């Protein structure tokens, strides 16, 4: 689709990037708050324990210590820290401070003090007596009759879905179509395998941080590193019993989120400190605190059973997922659902399907939203089975995927059956560039030259190539809402106010591009203000790959209204009809009279001359559907058959994200997600000791990728246009993290003939697999 655009489709400069590169842009902790109190937290050293007593006498005697908060002096308001819409589809099972400790890293108390040193000293001086309880670490036994129970009867789901704290069941999902037994009977062979993925951390380089102060009218202002400012306001209001009208939440620049900052767990703490003392307060987590006490990617066990005919037709597919949510139920239902809803529709011709999932509590760190959101975990299983099916039936994998994947004009019953914790929304695919993704990606990796060749590159080293395909969504249909307002200034510039949250993705820039395109002006003429609950209209925030598609459409509607007003004024000024006018680069022309006016002329007239008014508008947007982006990702690996080390030589991602509003930013989303996914696949892991303590809460020991670990990377944006999206756009923020785990596993098989069932693929784990299959070399 070669649509003509002025600004859309151009890699304009990210509007905040120069100020960031110069070090001028302000992040939460960069705001100077005079005489702010520092908050430090005392964490539980036990995975499961009851607090028998807390003695703060010595701690309070430390000079500079102002207040110590704990379960005896803070009301117990059960809530969820998941920053989701209302009512949240996550259990209300969390109190700011509780008597029961449910993981090593659970919150015992918080100290507010004049200095960080005093706060830290006080944390050490608090005396706590615990009664240890039997811990629950294994999700497989969490629902057993004799398993320790983590939550009491008062923990509840705010929406009517299955939840049973007495069985440690945080969520359950089941959908079925067709006749599974019949489907398996029709199969010529059945594959059944179990796959495990691990705990992982977001590793935004800026730690979680929040600050608060009272403004001159006594309102609570919270500056915070969040993806969800409006949900923060709502949750803080409820937990602290402060009216929404008395709370203002501001998101300044934030140093990455990836889902981790969709959690609301520090804002109520700084809010409590400031509201109760009247003093500004701030908290800045240390890196170990971020690893242990913030949120993680849920580990999952996925058992996949696939019935196949000899010609490759899949007659039945049953996916059974067990998700470990750790101590609290954040995103327990929706991440689990997403593991089905964003994954199963991709191969929509399978008639007999069952997806059954359980999410359970354990005494381990808490799961939460993380880029990919469950789909990354289950695509691991699905993509390996697809690879197996193609191999066992003697077909080229690419041709196989092309034959069976969902196409334009098609649907899947899964769309309607499975949504955001409840029923979903039926939709028909209107754009799908997956075939082009497959062709271009295959060419870039050299698929047909390398596949199945097991090239020996050096003694003990062998190479292979693998593929992963996936889809995601673009926002949550009929739930996510974004809005925008705009006003015009007399130099022809426009203020754009958006609730949408730019967490570094560049959404401020692409929303400005959408407005600039609609108004036919350079993007520099849009002044963006985003994410301030006092000044900007509501937006659910940055999650579920929603901002471009949902908020972008709100901006487009809003700018169209503004344009209409501009033409109305111009028509009056030119004695013409609005539909006789043409706009070109901020100039309105009346062809018949040959007269023209600049936007500046028009706004100045509207403000000062006659029937004065402010040219301004607002608009909201929800979407009736969630068009999926598609991606084909290819890995070429080299396996050391002596050590089990996998090296990724090249990684290619070919993505259909509709019309990219800003190609460089879209590529950046893909590249960032891929490298995050590569280290998720190969190195990142939470290591626990026998007491449930994480033993490696540091970047190097957890091991995220650095520049030196990079393979050759190639990103291809294929030609696509989604008619329901703003200027043809779909989402691109999450999808690319799905590919590395399965693509590397499939490439590893191509090289060695051995399947990997567990992540991360560390040398020791891979070595063991090679040994089991007698593929080790000396």
């Amino acid at each position, binding site marked *: 689709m070669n649509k003509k655009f002025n600004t859309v489709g151009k*890699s304009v*400069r*990210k509007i*905040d*990037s*120069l100020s*960031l*590169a*110069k*070090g*001028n*842009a*302000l*992040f939460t*902790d*960069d705001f*100077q708050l005079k005489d702010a109190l520092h908050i430090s937290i005392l964490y539980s050293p036990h995975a499961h324990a009851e607090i028998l007593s807390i003695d703060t006498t010595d701690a309070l005697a430390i000079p500079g210590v102002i207040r110590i908060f704990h379960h005896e002096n803070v009301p117990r308001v059960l809530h969820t820290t998941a920053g989701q819409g209302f009512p949240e589809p996550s259990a209300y099972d969390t109190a700011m401070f509780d008597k029961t400790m449910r993981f090593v890293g659970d919150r015992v108390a918080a100290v507010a003090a004049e200095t960080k*040193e005093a706060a830290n000293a006080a944390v050490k001086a608090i005396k706590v007596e615990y009664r240890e309880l039997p811990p629950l670490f294994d999700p497989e036994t969490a629902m057993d009759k004799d398993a320790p129970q983590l939550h009491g009867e008062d923990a509840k789901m705010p929406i009517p879905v299955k939840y049973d704290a007495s069985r440690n069941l945080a969520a359950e999902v089941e959908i079925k179509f067709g006749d599974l037994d019949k489907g398996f009977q029709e199969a010529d062979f059945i594959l059944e395998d179990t796959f495990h993925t691990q705990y992982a951390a*977001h*590793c*935004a*380089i*800026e*730690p979680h941080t929040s600050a608060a102060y009272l403004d001159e009218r006594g309102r609570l202002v919270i500056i915070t590193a969040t993806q969800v400012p409006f949900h923060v306001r709502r949750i803080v209001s409820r937990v602290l019993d402060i009216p929404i009208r008395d709370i203002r939440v501001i998101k300044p*620049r*934030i*140093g*990455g989120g*990836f889902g981790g900052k969709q959690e609301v767990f520090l804002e109520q703490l700084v809010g409590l400190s400031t509201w109760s003392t009247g003093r500004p307060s701030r908290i*800045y987590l*240390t*890196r170990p605190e971020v690893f242990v006490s913030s949120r993680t990617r849920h580990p999952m066990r996925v058992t996949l059973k696939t019935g196949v005919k000899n010609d490759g037709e899949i007659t039945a597919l049953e996916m059974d997922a067990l998700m470990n949510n750790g101590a609290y139920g954040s995103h327990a239902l929706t991440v689990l659902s997403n593991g089905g809803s964003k994954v199963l529709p991709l191969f929509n011709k399978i008639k007999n399907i069952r997806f059954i999932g359980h999410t359970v509590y354990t005494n381990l760190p808490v799961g939460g939203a993380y880029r990919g959101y469950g789909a990354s975990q289950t695509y691991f299983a699905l993509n390996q089975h697809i690879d197996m099916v193609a191999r066992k039936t003697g077909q080229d994998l690419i041709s196989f995927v092309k034959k069976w994947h969902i196409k334009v004009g098609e649907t899947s019953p899964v769309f309607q059956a499975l949504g955001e914790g409840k029923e979903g929304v039926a939709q028909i695919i209107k754009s799908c560039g997956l075939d082009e993704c497959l062709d271009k990606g295959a060419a870039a990796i050299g698929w047909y030259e390398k596949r199945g060749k097991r090239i020996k590159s050096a003694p003990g080293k062998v190479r292979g190539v693998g593929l992963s395909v996936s889809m995601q969504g673009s926002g949550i249909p009929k739930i996510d809402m974004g809005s925008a307002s705009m006003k015009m200034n007399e130099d022809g510039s426009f203020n754009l106010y958006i609730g949408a949250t730019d*967490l*570094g*993705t*560049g959404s401020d820039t692409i929303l400005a591009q959408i407005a600039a395109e609609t108004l036919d002006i350079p993007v520099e003429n849009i002044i963006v203000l985003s994410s301030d609950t006092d000044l900007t209209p509501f937006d659910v925030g940055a999650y579920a790959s929603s901002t471009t598609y949902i908020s972008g459409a709100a901006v487009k509607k809003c700018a169209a209204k503004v344009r209409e007003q501009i033409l109305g004024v111009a028509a009056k000024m030119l004695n013409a009809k609005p539909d006789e006018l043409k706009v070109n680069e901020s100039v309105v022309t009346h062809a018949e009279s040959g007269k023209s006016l600049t936007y500046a002329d028009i706004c100045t007239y509207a403000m000062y001359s006659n029937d004065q008014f402010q040219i301004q508008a607002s608009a909201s947007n929800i979407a009736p559907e969630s068009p999926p982006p598609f991606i084909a990702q290819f890995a070429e690996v080299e396996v050391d058959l002596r050590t089990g080390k996998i090296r990724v030589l090249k990684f290619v991602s070919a993505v259909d994200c509709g019309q990219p509003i800003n190609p*460089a*930013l879209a*590529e*950046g989303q893909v*590249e*960032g*997600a*891929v*490298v*995050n996914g590569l280290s998720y696949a190969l190195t990142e892991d939470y290591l626990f000791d026998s007491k449930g303590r994480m033993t490696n809460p*540091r*970047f*190097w020991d957890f091991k*995220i*990728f*650095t*520049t*030196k670990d*990079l393979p050759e*990377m190639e*990103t291809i944006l294929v030609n696509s246009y989604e008619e329901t999206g703003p200027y043809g756009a779909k989402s691109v923020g999450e999808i690319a993290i799905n590919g590395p785990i399965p693509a590397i596993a499939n490439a590893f098989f191509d090289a060695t003939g051995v399947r990997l069932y567990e992540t991360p693929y560390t040398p020791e784990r891979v070595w063991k697999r090679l040994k089991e299959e007698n593929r080790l070399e000396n």
Partner: protein
Amino acid sequence: MKTKLTVNNKPVSVQFSPTDRLLDVLRNNGFSEVKEGCRDGECGACVVLLNGKLVNSCQVLAASAMDATVTTVKGLEKDKAAPIQEAFVDAGAVQCGFCTPGMVLATYALLQENPAPDTRQIQQALDGNLCRCTGYVKIIEAVQLAAERTNSHE
């Protein structure tokens, strides 16, 4: 302890305790462009030039920097820093931007030593600066672009 530091060519009177790190002293005195990502010397968000050498300021005791000159991203020589910053912007290498001041400093230090680094050398030089947003691809392109632009001007 009270002393004077030279930060970005200006004397700054600072007060600190003997265990304070240079990172804390800088941030407490308004140099908020120096970021804290880990306090472990692992992420590079807090790098500064200490007597012209790239260091993690979280790994330097403030007391040991008393007679040294400290340069943050805001104190770099403009004609050398600007092309790097512009290259980061043009290459799309800035996403959240939290690591960017450190990346710019690391690039500055690299180009001082090696005006025309190859990809391998860039990867080596930036290995101590973590970024979770970009996947480093455009950061490496930005360093190449900065080097090209700087060299074509000389």
